[in-house]
């Protein structure tokens, strides 16, 4: 990767600046899009209501922006007993981990901030950083609800890191690379069942991995049925309970931004990412983001559909699912993939 965007030669400083700005914009924007489409609109319709209709004129599209502005105006309340520095730092860590995931997600053959050779590994590694922020938030809030929430979050995220990884290993085995760009190319150029006009999206061969990935991602994102860390009927808001104003906004962006990032990851790993088979060059760079966005929204729809339908599991049941079912299934999937790969080649 030279420092080039759309074939324009620019200095590395400018490139860096542009990339930074894009990543900084894409996460809040993604959070807004997901929040509006699914939290405000899809959920409302599933509940036989319309959701916000007035702000912005058309179906209340401005509602979340307005909410954001409102959050910025709010008083920044810090509990008296709180560990002030940790309390202030925690939301930032959660958001930063979201930003870091997006560094390696390719949106076009050359439209990627940094095409790491260990892209998948890196993405999953930084995504689990957020748990540190959550733990800090819960501990520093000096609130029992927050503490319980944070400890639940820690236990849960650790338990689901493994199935997430195992789900991806199958893809990595099949593609033969850990670079996300490489995985996309492998899907675009591969063929399945003797047909090659739409490439080989790994969802067809790795359906088990895809389901595992979605389940584990749901747990990573602390969404229902795995939302015990924030369980509003038990812990009010879990680790976020003492947060107000823009710090709460950070958590919100972190939650939906991470959902955006994970949906993008799933779309890249299993649905073929940005690629349209047969389209290459600058056109692929131009169409890539759109294609990825459409696939991403499809994955996000699945995730949020489950979120708004299911009840919540209990913490011990969640651990049981992770260790008794998901991890063995993941391991079996890897073994099967490996055997088939060896047999076919």
């Amino acid at each position, binding site marked *: 990767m030279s420092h080039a965007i759309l074939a324009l030669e620019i200095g590395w400083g400018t490139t860096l600046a542009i990339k930074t700005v894009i990543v900084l914009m894409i996460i809040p924007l993604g959070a807004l899009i997901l929040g509006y489409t699914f939290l405000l609109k899809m959920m409302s319709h599933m509940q*036989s209501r319309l959701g916000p209709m007035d702000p912005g004129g058309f179906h209340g599209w401005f509602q979340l922006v307005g909410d954001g502005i409102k959050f910025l105006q709010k008083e920044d309340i810090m509990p008296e007993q709180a560990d002030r520095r940790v309390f202030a730092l925690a939301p930032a860590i959660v958001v930063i981990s979201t930003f870091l995931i997006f560094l390696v997600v390719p949106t076009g053959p050359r439209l990627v901030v940094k095409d790491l050779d260990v892209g998948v590994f890196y993405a999953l590694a930084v995504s689990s950083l957020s748990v540190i922020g959550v733990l800090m938030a819960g501990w520093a809030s000096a609130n029992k609800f927050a503490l319980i929430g944070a400890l639940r979050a820690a236990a849960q995220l650790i338990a689901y890191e493994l199935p997430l990884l195992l789900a991806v290993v199958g893809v990595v085995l099949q593609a033969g690379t850990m670079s996300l760009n490489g995985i996309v190319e492998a899907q675009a150029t591969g063929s399945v069942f003797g047909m090659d006009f739409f490439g080989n999206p790994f969802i067809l061969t790795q359906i088990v991995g895809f389901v595992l990935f979605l389940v584990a991602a749901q747990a990573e994102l602390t969404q*229902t049925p795995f939302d015990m860390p924030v369980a509003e*009927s038990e812990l009010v808001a879990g680790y976020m309970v003492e947060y107000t104003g823009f710090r709460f906004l950070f958590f919100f962006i972190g939650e939906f931004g991470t959902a955006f990032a994970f949906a993008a990851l799933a779309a890249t790993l299993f649905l073929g990412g940005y690629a349209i088979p047969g389209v290459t060059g600058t056109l692929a760079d131009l169409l890539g983001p759109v294609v990825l966005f459409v696939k991403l929204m499809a994955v996000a729809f699945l995730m949020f559909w489950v979120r708004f339908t299911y*009840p919540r599991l209990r*913490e011990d049941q969640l651990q049981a699912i992770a260790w008794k079912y998901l991890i063995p299934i993941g391991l079996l999937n890897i073994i099967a993939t490996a055997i088939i790969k060896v047999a076919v080649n």
Partner: protein
Amino acid sequence: MTTTETPGFEVDPALYRNLENAQVNVELDTGDMILNLGPQHPATHGTLRLVVRLDGERVVAADPVIGYMHRGYEKLSEFRTYPQITTLINRIDWLSSFANEVPFVHGAEQLMGVEAPPRAQWIRTILTELSRIATIYLFLGEMGLQVGALTPAFWGFRDREHVLNLIEAATGGRFHPNFNRIGGLKDDLPWGWISECRATMDKILKGCDDFEDVLVGNEIFEARTRGIGIIPGELGAAYGVSGANLRASGVDWDLRRDGKPYLAYPEIDFKVWTHPDGDSFARYWVRLQETREAVRMVIQLLDGLPAGSIMAKVPRIIKVPEGEVWVEVENPLGQMGYYIVSKGATGPFRVKIRSASFSNVSILPWLLRGVYVPDVITIMGSLYFILGDIDR
């Protein structure tokens, strides 16, 4: 977290027994965490405070603290006339306010020796069953919210709205009908009400099917509720638990059928649903069946509604002769009773209100020992109490 210093004196064994009995007496203990669920907490339906002692996420002891919403209706009743009291007792269990009025008016009628005409009795029964549907239907959705499913709660509110519209069209008040008069009803049903009621009942049945698909059939919901908060039938009865909570423990006891005959219940055919398990799932299931049964009863009642007047002859100024009476009925939440003492004045001398939720939550300390924090919410949700019904 909250550690209190251990005083250096020998511990009286009697105090230990107190601890086991879930008292808030925890000065002697340092290892556990005390969590205050409420009085402001999303899962306590209002202002119930639950002091929970936790060992990790496991509840060692729980103590419900009630009274944050005490409004003193028993005392207020002593300074009101009989027609005025019905407006107060509307507000005891605000979700099924019509059902609250019936036993009181019934008691006053018994003391006066008047009886409401059949049409009034039947309309009373219809409206009681409608308020039963309105109350329980909300539970069916809200139970989902307690275990984490957001969407069914809104469906609960959505379809209850149709029932409330019916109650409003007939009585004028959505929540506080104040429609019963001593000797009958304030008004007859408005034109077109019956057909509207039939249409609404179809919607309720359809909604019940939705709940069955989304919650009862859902394995996650089952995992969260099955075996959680088991009330043995005899113990439940000893604690005074009543209504669907008791029937879910296999006790086949329903005052509509087993009590002193009242309203039009002896004349219609209905089934009392029970479940042998006694856990949270059984309570949900029994209530779901009861909603469907109530729909069946409403349709029967609409079919057989007799014609005639809706008001017996009563004097304009109501004076209830001297005497005492105890009336108990099956309310949506359980057994509701009034003990009315009259000294012959325009108002009662003393009214004792037996409300279902007060007795239903009395089993909480026993029930909550050894469960996890999420189960606390499940159990409280499945017991289904209304704070106004506890505190009065």
